[in-house]
Structures are given as structure tokens and as C-alpha cells.
């Protein structure tokens, strides 16, 4: 039994234990902590094996012989980083659930975590897909049942998210099915990612077909990541979702779509994103994310809406990294996935506290928090500045790598669509500075309307928040800690550059 199977199984066991009546908080935090420790251990060991750039901790159990489906696990750098992100955000999310919440909160969080672990650590397309779906259901249920809005609104929001994500999943399923069928020769149909990769290397598909399948996958995965114009479910869902769900979905689960593109679509269809019409469409869509949603975010009045939209907006950068497909840009994309995940989780956790205290998140009504809750405001600053892309915090390294990688894509000095996109996308950074700084100033400086007043979180409540802030700082200052894991991406990029 691989240690990675333990990682996937632990949240499921925690769910069972809580359902059967074990103390929810203890079990939940305990299992999350254990998973973080295990994955740190895996990371330490992986470093030794990383030079080969291949998969580590592999293990597979055959579930179905034909079509070949196996419950296989294994990590490469990308999977490992996302696994770490999942463990970190899960720990923070379940830690900050206050005791007066029903055990359902813990069950749902652990289910989402289990699904995310499964999706990131499995090496079989079937299970990658299946685990992601598993994680979506508690997300919808929690928004619909415990969302922070009146009954009708939260149900409407939950349905919107369900329909978008359900439809996206189906498109994705169609794309994956197509992919599997294309690569399966003879009577053998396999879902095993490793086998599929080998086949993609030995007998790649014709370029035009790669483009079409890649586009289908892009729409499928893109809906899950709120790619413009399929994004409109995201902001209301995050504004409405209970805090741990918002943290886990925006921070972790949403990255699944990007992960899928990097781990499944790019290696199997290396030419896909470089087919001209696919690239143009992708660049247009991600510019929509960055510019249009950026402007929309600036127009928002309420903090949860700002954060929800900014989360949509930042996906554009990661898509840019994937569209460029160079080693540097891909490394940047993975790094930014980590950074964004941690930062948005931190921000949602803090926003949740504020909403509990004030009952409103209108920036105009708040103010002067810095003097009442200095620790809180510093933590918030970490999150806000990280998402702007301030040097020294995790996102900066990611964004810079993406911009550099994308700009210098073909090594020549010509300025093609990709380069123009980079130039336009840089304005997005300015926009995020505008709305984040304005929100920060509005909330933490000046004076509040009467009665809107809060204290710093208690010590035990600070732990998960500090954990996230520390992760931002550490990765920001020493990005090579994660970049070392990403050597395997160079092989992908090399294929793509051909």
C-alpha cells in the first residue's frame, strides 16, 4: 500500500468517524495535520528522486481489466505541490471552523479534501475525474444548506454553480473519453495516464486533432476554473459559501482544472495549445479573465465580491502560463497555483471572521480595523499583497515566471499574439493593486461606522492563519523550494516546443 493511498483514505476515514459520532473537530484537525506531515515527508523524499523528473511513490490496483481502469497513485512535482497545498488549506480550513457549527461542516470539508487529494494524486484518468466530482457534491450541498444568504439566494447560487460545474464536467468527460479512445489502439482501452503518455510520445495525434481535443478539454477544465466567459458562477458561489468550503474550493479544488490541463492535456496533446485558432481563443478568453473581470472587480463594493472576482481574475495568469507552454511559464503557473491557493484561503478565512462580527462586508461601511485588530490587519495584508503580487510573497515569483516565460516564448524578438497578451495582462497587475489597496485602506484605515468593531482572533484561532501567511512568505522568499520539484515540467515543455 502506497503512502499516497493513506493520504487519500485518511479524509474518508475521518468522514466515517465523524458520521459515526467521533468528536468532529479533533478527528478532522488530526487527520488534516497528519496528512500535512505525511506529504511533507513525501516531499522530502521526493527531492531525492526529483532529478529523474518522473513519478514517485507509484502504486496501482486494477479495478477493471477492459477498459483498463486501475486505482493508481503517484506524484510528480505538480501533483506534490498541489497535494501540499491541499493539506495546508485543509488544515487551516477545518481548524478555523468554530465549535458551534454542526459536524456537517467537518464532513463536507474532509470530503472535499479527500476528493482533491484523490484528484491530484491519482494516475488514472478515471479516478482523477471521479474524485473531483466527489469533491464537488459537498461543495454544492454546503452552499445550498449553510450558505450565508437568505434561503432563495443561496439555493439559486448553489444551482447556478451546480449547473455550470456539472455541464463543465460533462464536457470534460466527453473530452477525456475522446482522448482515451484516440490513444487506445486495438482492443485495449486504457485510462492509465502513464500508459496514455507513453502512447502520446510514441504515436502523437495529428496536430489539428490535438487542437480540437485540447479545446474541448479547455472548455471543460476551464469551466471548473472559471475561465472567461464561463466564470459567472464563481463570484456569487464564493461570496455565499460557508468559510471552509470557500477556502477549500477557491484555494484547492478550483486548481483541479488547471492541474488537469498541465498534467493530462499538455503531455498528451503537446501541440494542442499552439494550434493557431486554439491559442487565439485561449488568449482572448484569458484576457477576458484578466482585463474584463479586473474591471468588474474594481467596480465591486463589497469585500466578498471583490475577493470572489479577483480569484476569477487571477486564473487568467495561470491560463497564460499554460497557453505559453514554456518551461518557465509552466513552472510559474504551478507556483502561482500554490500561491493563489494559499492567499485566497487566507483572505476567505479572514473575511469569514469579519462577516461573523459585522454582518456586512460593504467596504464603505467598514474602517479603522487596523487600530482595533492589528494582528488581523497584518494577516489580511499578507493575503492582499500576495494576491497583488508583491515581491517576497509566493504569487510574485509565479507571476514573474509566467510573464517571462510567455514573453520569450519562441526566443525571437518578434511580438506575436502571446507577447501582446503579456503586455495587456501586465495591466491586470495594476488593476489588482487598485482594488486590493482600495479595499485594504477602506477597511483597515479611517474610521468605521458605529458599532463595527472587532478584536484580534484568539491565539488558537491565529494558528491556521499564521500557517497560511507563513507559507506565503516562505515560498515567496525561497521559491526554489517548490521549483525544485518542477523539473519534470521541462520534459513536457521540451515536447511542446518541438
Amino acid at each position, binding site marked *: 500500500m502506497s503512502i499516497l493511498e493513506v493520504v487519500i483514505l485518511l479524509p474518508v476515514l475521518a468522514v466515517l468517524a465523524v*458520521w459515526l459520532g467521533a468528536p468532529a473537530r479533533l478527528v478532522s484537525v488530526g487527520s488534516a495535520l497528519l496528512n500535512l506531515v505525511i506529504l511533507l515527508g513525501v516531499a522530502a523524499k521526493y527531492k531525492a528522486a526529483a532529478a529523474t523528473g518522473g513519478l514517485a511513490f507509484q502504486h496501482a490496483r*486494477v*479495478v*477493471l*481489466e*477492459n*477498459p483498463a*481502469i486501475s*486505482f493508481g497513485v503517484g506524484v510528480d512535482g505538480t501533483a506534490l505541490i498541489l497535494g501540499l497545498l491541499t493539506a495546508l488549506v485543509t488544515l487551516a480550513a477545518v481548524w478555523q471552523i468554530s465549535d458551534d457549527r454542526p459536524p456537517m461542516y467537518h464532513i463536507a470539508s474532509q470530503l472535499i479534501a479527500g476528493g482533491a487529494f484523490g484528484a491530484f494524486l491519482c494516475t488514472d484518468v*478515471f479516478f482523477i*475525474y*471521479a*474524485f473531483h*466530482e*466527489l469533491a464537488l*457534491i459537498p461543495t*454544492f*450541498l454546503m452552499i*445550498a*444548506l449553510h450558505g450565508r444568504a437568505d434561503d432563495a439566494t443561496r*439555493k439559486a447560487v*448553489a*444551482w447556478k454553480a*451546480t*449547473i455550470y460545474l*456539472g*455541464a463543465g464536467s*460533462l464536457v470534460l*468527460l*466527453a473530452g477525456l*473519453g*475522446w482522448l*482515451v*479512445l484516440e490513444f*487506445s489502439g*486495438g*482492443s*485495449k*482501452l486504457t485510462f492509465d495516464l502513464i500508459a496514455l503518455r507513453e502512447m502520446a510520445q510514441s504515436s502523437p495525434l495529428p496536430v489539428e486533432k490535438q487542437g480540437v481535443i485540447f479545446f474541448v478539454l479547455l472548455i471543460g477544465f476551464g469551466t471548473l476554473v472559471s475561465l472567461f466567459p464561463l466564470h459567472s458562477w464563481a463570484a456569487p458561489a464564493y461570496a455565499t459559501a460557508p468559510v471552509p468550503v470557500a477556502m477549500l474550493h477557491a484555494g484547492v479544488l478550483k486548481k483541479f482544472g488547471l492541474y488537469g490541463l498541465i498534467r493530462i492535456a499538455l503531455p498528451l496533446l503537446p501541440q494542442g495549445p499552439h494550434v493557431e485558432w486554439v491559442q487565439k481563443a485561449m488568449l482572448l478568453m484569458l484576457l477576458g479573465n484578466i482585463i474584463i473581470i479586473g474591471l468588474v472587480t474594481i467596480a465591486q463594493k463589497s469585500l466578498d465580491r471583490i475577493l470572489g472576482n479577483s480569484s476569477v481574475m487571477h486564473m487568467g495568469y495561470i491560463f497564460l502560463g499554460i497557453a505559453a507552454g514554456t518551461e518557465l511559464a509552466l513552472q510559474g503557473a504551478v507556483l502561482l497555483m500554490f500561491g493563489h491557493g494559499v492567499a485566497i484561503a487566507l483572505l476567505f478565512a479572514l473575511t469569514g471572521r469579519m462577516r461573523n462580527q459585522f454582518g456586512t462586508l460593504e467596504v464603505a461601511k467598514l474602517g479603522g480595523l487596523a487600530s482595533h485588530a492589528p494582528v488581523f490587519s497584518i494577516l489580511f495584508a499578507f493575503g492582499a499583497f500576495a494576491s497583488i503580487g508583491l515581491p517576497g510573497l509566493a504569487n510574485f515569483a509565479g507571476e514573474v515566471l509566467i510573464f517571462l516565460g510567455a514573453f520569450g516564448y519562441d526566443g525571437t524578438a518578434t511580438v506575436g499574439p502571446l507577447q501582446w497578451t503579456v503586455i495587456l495582462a501586465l495591466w491586470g497587475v495594476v488593476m489588482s493593486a487598485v482594488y486590493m489597496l482600495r479595499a485594504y485602506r477602506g477597511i483597515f484605515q479611517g474610521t468605521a461606522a458605529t458599532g463595527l468593531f472587532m478584536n484580534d482572533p484568539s491565539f488558537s484561532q491565529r494558528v491556521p492563519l499564521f500557517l497560511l501567511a507563513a507559507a506565503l512568505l516562505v515560498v515567496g522568499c525561497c521559491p526554489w523550494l517548490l521549483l525544485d520539484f518542477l523539473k519534470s515540467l521541462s520534459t513536457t515543455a521540451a515536447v511542446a516546443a518541438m
Partner: protein
Amino acid sequence: MSVFSIEILLVVLGVGLLLLEALVPSLTRRALASISLGGAALALVLFFFADKSAAALPAFAQPFHQLDTLAVFYKGFALVITLAVLWLTVESRAYLERYTPGGRHGEMFSLPLIVCAGMMWMASAKDLITVFVCLELVTVSFYVLVAFARKSSFALEAGVKYLILGALSTGVLVYGIAWTYGVTDSMSFEGIAEALAAPATAKNAALLGAAFLLAGLGFKVAAAPFHIWVPDVYQGAPNPVTAFLSVGSKAAGFIVLTRVVDAFMAKGSVIASEVQALLLIGGALTVLLGSLPAIFQTNLKRLLAYSSISHAGYLLLALGCAQTARFDLDGSSVAAFYLGTYLPMTVLGFLILTVVRQAGLGDDAQDFAGLAKKNPFLAFAATLGFASLAGIPLTAGFMGKLFVFLGLVENAHWFALSCAVIGAAAGFYYYLRPVLVMFTGESGPALKIAAPTRAVLVLLAGAILVIGVFPKPLQGVLKVPVASATK
């Protein structure tokens, strides 16, 4: 001991039970139920040890029955669903007593056994006459079962509707058989396949027979546009009967359909592509006509009825892919696999409806409000069942749908695929809505479930999960492609 003796045993048991009820007035309902359940369970146990080779069949049955993997699989399937239905009958005591006062429901315990034998024979039938005779045994028994709660005007209404449309389908079926026989000069599937492969066969006439035959069977499996009876009949009939109709009778219809389609689409058949087109168009239409109205249903039993229609659509689509088989699994075994996944989730759905109705509540969505508080165990089982019906990954339902989708993609039936996708997408909405209702709403008095029912629920939920995560055993049962002989 051959499989055939088990079928005889079921008939003897069914008839004996009728005699017992008539002749021994002191026998209680409980005793009748125990005999029936015990007998069915015994039959299932014996079935595992029975000699399943065709050679073990008695000589007079040999020309009419074949025991390929599909037949054996379905015979086991029929026994399991019959057991489940008998259990549901035990559970719906309150309902039955209300609408058939003073009865011991002997017919409700004996007729399913006879129906089971009929369905088992149907599964192994080799020719149209055997199919017709067994199909009618099943159909006539269902007329009685559907209208059994004769004091309920709903049940009577359902009975009349089922009667009219059942008789209509019989007429259409016989007409189809007549034309098929007329063109191919044969009643056996093998002979039909052979005759259709001859290029001189009159194509239009053969197609006419095929169309009527498929339409007649389409009624039995609730395929569009012959599905209109389903929601009313399912809603009006007693729960156990509805479950039996929606799983047992439909599965039996599909086995026959599989045989017929295999014959019509055998290698070189002059009408193969037309039949395939009929199946695909019919399947796509059925998925849509089952899924889209389901969105507006507030009654869960009607919802399950529409769900049953849309599942029939997926099964038809699976059959429609039967021609090519790049990955070993041909259309008929995909359909059989789909049926295998369909059994536990549908029975689970009806069992939950029955348990809730037993507690004095109805079938409407609001009757399920707050179920999570009244009985979290039941709510969890229901969630699992509905998730599986919706086809959420890691449940049995997803596996079945996956195969159908793969088959459609493989054969590039894009139109059918898009209809199937629309149906599945709608499914996410209408199946998850009742789940949402269960988790919201006011708490009420706790809902008690008897221990055996709890065990059955666990068993069904376990089956859904096991098939969803580890489908190898179920697929193993169907390993040998059914139609390999004719292809």
C-alpha cells in the same frame, strides 16, 4: 440440478402458495410472506450451485432455451429483484392493508414468483414464440399486480392504463412477429439472423416487421414514444409493483430486445443500419423525454418513473452501439452491465419511498423534508441512491453511463451523444434537488426503520459503491460477449 428445475420450483412455489392461501385460512400474512421469501431465497441459493450448462436443460426445453452468459446473468438478476420486491411487499403492509382490507395479500406473494419464472424463461428464450408466451405470462401477471390495491382509485387508474397500453403493445408485437416470420420464414433468432443476411431478403417488409417488433418491445421497456404510460402507472401502482415493473419487467424486456437486435443487426443483415438508426434515435429521444419532464416533477415516485424512462434511453443507446466492438465489450454486454448497475439504485430508491410511506408520509418531495434530521441513516442511503441515479462518479450509475458514452464516442454517434449528455446534465439537477430537500426543512418525529430493512439498505448502498469503485466482478460475469456466436 439444472437452472430449469429452479424455474419449475418457483412456479410450484407460486401455485402452491395460492393453494395454501385458499385452503388454509389460519395461515397468517406473515407465514405467507415467509414461505414466499424463503422459497425465493432458496431458489437464489440453489441457482448459485445449479448446473448452468445448456446440456443440463431437459430435452424438451433444449430447442427453446439457451444458457449463454447473458441469460445466466439475467436469471440471477431476476431472482435478486424478485427477492427485493417480496421484501418491499412485506414493508408496504400498511399501504396494502389500507387498499385491500381484510386480505392476506397472498397474490402479492405468489404472483411475483410466477413472474420471476416467466422472466427467467424469457431471458433464455431462443425464439419468438417462447418470448411471446413468457412475455404474456409476465404481462398478464402485472395487470393483476398493478391494479391489486383495488380500493385505491390511483391503482385502478394505473391498472386500466397499463392494461390498455399493454394490450396495445401485445397487438403490435404479434403483428411485428407475424411480419418478421413472414419475411424470414423463421421464428428463431438464429434463423431470423440467417435469413436477414441473405441479400435477396425483402428489405422494406423486413423493416416493417422489425419496426413493429421493436415498437412492441419498446412499450415493455418504456422507450419513447411508447413511454407515456410509465409515469401514471408507476405512480399509481403499489411501490413493490412499481419497483418490479421498473427493474424486473424492464430488464426482461431488454434481454429480449438484445436478442432481437442481435438478430436484426447480425453480420450482413440487410436492415442492420436502419435498426441501428431506430435504436439510436429512439434512445436519444427516450433520454430527452425522460429527463426533461423529470425536471418539473415534485412527486418522487413520478420522478423515479421519468428516471426509469431516461435510463431505458441509455440502455437503447448501448444497444445501438452493438455493431462495432473495439474494446471487447459489445452493446449487449454494456446494456447488461448497465442493468446490473440499475438494479441496486432503483430498488434502493423504491425501498426508501416505501419506508417513508410506511411511516405515514407520502411520495411528494416535501414529505422528505428534514429527513436528514429524522433519520440520518436513511437520508445518507437516499443521497447515495440518487447520486448513483444521477451518475456521479464512484457510484454504480456512473460506470454504466461511462460505458454508454464511450460506446457512442467510439462509434461517433454525435447526435445521440449530445442528447445523452443533455439528459445526464438534467439528471444532476432533478436527482440532487430531492437530496437538498432531505437536508433542509423542519425536523419531525424520528423515523424508525426495522433492523432487516436497515440491513437491506446497507446491502444495496454497498452494492452501489462497490460497483462504482470496483466494477471488475460485475463485468467479469459478462466477460464473454454474448453475440460472438452470431457475429
